[in-house]
């Protein structure tokens, strides 16, 4: 699991690369939680995550809660068809999701 983050016009763009399972999710969590600062705008790009289990989904929910608690915002971009197939079943409906990173950035810039 590789995590890259960069700042684009005040938005923290995080790119996850690799497989998100029970082994890698805690590693990702340790790096991502500190990003959930008050009023932060976070774009989480998962287009290069080839596999995500419920451990990854739990991490998404945790990040959502953390950012919401401090009036931050988070969007999810690049969910694969495989992930949409199962993850949307009531679990990611809360998230604002966009197909591309540009769409996600646009949405956050408008806030």
């Amino acid at each position, binding site marked *: 699991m590789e995590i890259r983050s960069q700042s684009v016009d005040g938005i923290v763009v995080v790119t996850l690369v690799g497989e998100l399972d029970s082994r890698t999710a805690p590693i990702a969590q340790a790096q991502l939680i500190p990003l959930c600062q008050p009023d932060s705008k976070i774009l989480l790009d998962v287009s290069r995550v080839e596999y995500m289990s419920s451990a990854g989904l*739990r991490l998404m*929910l945790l990040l959502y809660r953390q950012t919401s608690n401090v009036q931050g915002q988070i969007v999810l971009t690049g969910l694969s068809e495989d992930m949409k197939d199962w993850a949307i079943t009531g679990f990611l409906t*809360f998230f604002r999701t966009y197909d591309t990173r540009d769409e996600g950035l646009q949405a956050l810039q408008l806030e």
Partner: protein
Amino acid sequence: MNNDNVQVPASFDSLSSIRTYVMQAASAAGLEHKRAYRLQLAVDEIATNVVTHGGGSEQPDAYIRVSHEITDECLTIVLEDNSHPFDPTQQTLASDINAPLEERPIGGLGVYLALKNVDTFTYKYANQHNRNILVMYRQTPPPETQ
């Protein structure tokens, strides 16, 4: 037709190789991609459960053995482990699925996903071993159930 099997320590480090094994079996059985992915997810969730709840993480000699069988109709994946008896079907499942996201307990989600994503799921405990048996029909829709 019975094939090779793989035995790995019951730890999160083994999940990736278990998934690789399942995807190879799915490919040999000719499962379409979406169903192969679902099976992979289901097996991963069950294996994760063995490590988390079966005591795999506290038991140094705990292992998971994965085997598969391909018949004309289906692909069967069997996960066998020597951890504490643990029946995943007895976990609380989807009752919380409609609760608001913030309030929803997130335990039990993995098992819910596992059971939802395979055509049949069976749990057995015998000879000090848990056996989780996951079956996917090779053709869709499944000949008998749809």
